[in-house]
């Protein structure tokens, strides 16, 4: 029996009308999906992977259109079909789940009703049995207490639960094809694994085909049968997941593979083969004053917030656990008794999921916010007692600096790159005079690998990687001894991340800095840090040398974190993920 592909995309070209003329987001791509297959589309930002999926369902923006090619779904050409034919297809034969699940749901409509709407629209239920069917669907996606959750609004549910609802919505009419557009971005690592396993299991049970769109090659290799790699609107390579992961052929795929942080590689290995040479133009090595002496000592650090200023989630979770008034603690401890040390020349990683308190801890060490209790001692001086407003004016300010997570947000949109880098120099250093300051900016630009002609550009004229370099140049401008990096590469493409991580390592060695590297990504921390601290709910649950913690973790939570990292398994028979118990 010849296998007619379920989805046959041929020579697809999608154009957008923009201010600067016509832009081709996708050019002449071919993709086929067979029945029951899971295909991954992998690419960095601007590759056109999402646009492809929107074109398959023909839900492009007004400004977009399918310029050439065909999209054949079971004999219907989506590209030229009528809108009412398509409306039948959408939700019933082809479904989609999106990034940012809470925003994908109607905020003022109960989640149960939203699922019912889809069931009724596609005549999969009548008014009498729609509610029952909806509750069954909620149960199938492992939402506990589905009868009560039917009546919930999206803002009352966690991110993971919202994603389950979106999955239930998408699978309600048992479609043949599911398109998952970055379904785990924005979710915690542990939740990511749970959601992906759920999708894999449900689609396998129903014999559905799936398209998984992601920027994470590891994720795609773990969950997909075949993978197509896209770059700048074209498919550069398309093969089985195993081939792509173990023997990539195309130059770009190889670059992507190499740049993905994974066990068993060093920092240098992340760079493309041509660039494996060390970064250029480094100043003479800085000899550390006293090797291994403690630079930063934090003892029993606490940060408390009064409950009134908090979001609804923790309060609402309580609502589901018990009805009626119950004593709630008046304060919330974001950081609950954290102690650690950073020695000179060391690179310490601070790892945890969102909400664990790592960013709050680093903000307190930076003296950007006040602490509630505990001590912070830097090079023998107690800096914890000094209020942030005063600290900004002390000479000590120069010695602790920070690299921020979002390169766009951390640059003043009205300052050129040069002005942004010059800010700390103008305020806190002894360098005076326009020329001297400019010379120093150029020296810094060279150190971080920023081309000099970009110094006079504004942030909106720079790429993500370039903005990250400006942020780093600004941070090292005053020769700080301690540099705190708050997820500095989280917002960057994986290939850019590889370059920036190498840059950070080189700078650390040549300038003799100590690093406190805050991140949620264990693989990245492994590459850069000698010691790692694992945080959860405001407490440090484990600490120790990186290799030991990541290979033989002692705490259960660390084990959970490690297990959640996508791990492609190319054994002959693909192991099934265990059936998960219902999650409250």
């Amino acid at each position: 029996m010849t296998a007619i592909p379920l989805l046959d995309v041929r020579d697809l070209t999608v154009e957008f009308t923009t201010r600067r003329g016509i832009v081709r987001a996708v050019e002449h791509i071919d993709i086929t999906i067979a029945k029951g297959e899971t295909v991954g589309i992998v690419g960095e930002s601007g590759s056109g992977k999402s646009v492809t999926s929107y074109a398959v369902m023909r839900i492009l923006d007004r400004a977009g259109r399918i310029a050439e090619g065909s999209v054949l779904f079971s004999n219907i050409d989506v590209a030229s079909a009528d809108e009412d034919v398509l409306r039948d297809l959408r939700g019933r034969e082809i479904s989609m789940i999106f990034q940012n699940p809470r925003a994908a749901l109607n905020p003022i409509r109960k989640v149960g009703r939203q699922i019912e709407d889809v069931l009724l629209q596609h005549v999969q239920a009548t008014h009498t049995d729609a509610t029952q069917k909806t509750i069954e669907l909620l149960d199938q996606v492992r939402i506990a207490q589905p009868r009560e959750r039917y009546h919930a609004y999206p803002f009352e549910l966690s991110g993971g639960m919202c994603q389950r609802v979106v999955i239930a919505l998408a699978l309600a009419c048992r479609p043949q094809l599911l398109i998952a557009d970055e379904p785990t971005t924005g979710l915690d690592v542990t939740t990511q694994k749970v959601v992906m396993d759920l999708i894999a299991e449900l689609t396998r049970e129903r014999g559905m085909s799936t398209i998984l769109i992601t920027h994470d090659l590891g994720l795609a290799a773990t969950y997909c049968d075949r993978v197509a790699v896209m770059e700048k609107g074209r498919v550069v390579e398309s093969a089985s997941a195993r081939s792509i992961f173990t023997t990539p052929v195309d130059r770009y795929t190889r670059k992507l593979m190499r740049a993905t942080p994974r066990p068993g590689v060093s920092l240098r290995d992340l760079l493309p083969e041509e660039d494996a040479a060390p970064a250029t133009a480094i100043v003479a090595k800085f000899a550390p004053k006293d090797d291994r002496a403690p630079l930063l000592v934090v003892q029993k650090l606490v940060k408390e917030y009064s409950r009134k200023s908090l979001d609804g989630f923790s309060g609402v979770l309580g609502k589901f656990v018990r009805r009626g008034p119950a004593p709630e603690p008046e304060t919330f401890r974001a950081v609950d008794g954290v102690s650690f040390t950073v020695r000179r020349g060391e690179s310490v990683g601070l790892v945890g999921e969102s909400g664990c308190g790592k960013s709050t801890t680093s903000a307190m060490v930076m003296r950007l916010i006040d602490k509630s209790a505990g001590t912070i001692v830097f090079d023998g001086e107690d800096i914890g007692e000094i209020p942030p407003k005063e600290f900004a004016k002390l000479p000590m300010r120069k010695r602790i600096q920070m690299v921020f997570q979002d390169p766009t947000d951390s640059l003043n949109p009205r300052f050129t790159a040069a002005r942004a880098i010059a800010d700390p120099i103008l305020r806190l250093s002894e360098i005076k005079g326009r020329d001297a300051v400019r010379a120093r900016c150029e020296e810094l630009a060279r150190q971080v690998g920023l081309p000099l002609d970009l110094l006079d550009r504004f942030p909106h004229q720079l790429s993500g990687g370039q903005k990250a370099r400006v942020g780093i140049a600004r941070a090292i401008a005053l020769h700080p001894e301690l540099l705190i990096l708050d997820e500095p590469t989280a917002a960057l493409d994986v290939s850019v991340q590889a370059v920036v991580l190498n840059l950070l390592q080189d700078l650390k060695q040549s300038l003799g800095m100590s690093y406190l590297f805050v991140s949620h990504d264990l693989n990245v921390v492994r590459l850069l840090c000698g010691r790692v601290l694992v945080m959860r709910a405001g407490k440090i649950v484990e600490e120790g040398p990186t290799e030991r913690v990541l290979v033989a973790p002692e705490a259960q939570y660390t084990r959970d974190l490690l297990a959640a990292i996508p791990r492609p398994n190319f054994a002959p028979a693909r192991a099934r993920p265990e059936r998960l118990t219902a999650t409250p």
Partner: protein
Amino acid sequence: MTDLAPRSLPQSSAAGATFRHARYVISENPVTGVAFGLFVLIVLAAVLGPALVPYDPLASNTDAALKPPSVQHWFGTDQLGRDVFSRVVVAAQLDFFIAVASVALVFVMGGLAGVAAGFFGGWTDRIVGRIADTIMAFPLFVLAMGIVAALGNTVQNIILATAIINFPLYARAARAEANVRREAGFILAARLSGNGELRILLTQILPNIMPIMIVQMSLTMGYAILNAAGLSFIGLGVRPPTAEWGIMVADGAAFMISGEWWIAFFPGAALMTAVFCFNLLGDGLRDIVDPQRRT
């Protein structure tokens, strides 16, 4: 959706990019260009008008009273024989002055108060908030009536009253902008670079909110003129025989019903055109400055 913007070409400055964007917006929306042209015309009328008008706006000539528009009197004459055209042009100066003065006053008062409230928070925020809330508790025109009635029937008081009733709008807009940026990455970075709070407010926050405030100002200019005209219409502020659009409409209202439409029509039309032009200008400026906020 993926990021589609192709890599930018090297730019010389932000101003150059703004100018190109402005040109694009005007070409997309020629009405903005027309509005700009009208604006220039109004400014010219306000500045040069009184020197160029054919008749003395205050000179009455009862023989020529209530004449419809003709070649000698383009807009006709009113019940005292005064040339309506001259009066309309001269009134432009007064109305424009009132609008500019009140907008400038409220920009300084409300803008600074709002920025301080949004940036510093705490008591500053609470006090400014209370003041704004108290003003907003009144229907604004009614409050203006009350203020002018209480303080006295003068043009200065119209300006003051208009500024007061617009205070909450400006304070809120400025506060919102400052608030959004308060914990932005680049502000934290500025603190790390050794900038004090006040310096951050003046050198980093203010320049970033100026575009929004300028848009707000041009939109409120129209409202300020309408407010002043409304107050004059009910007899507050401007007194006869001064030429002001609102009071001219009030004078001509009775005659409208008996058929002498030109006395009230032309000042009213001038009023409408001026306000329309300011609003269009404000919309166009907003599109240039902050495209996400188009209406």
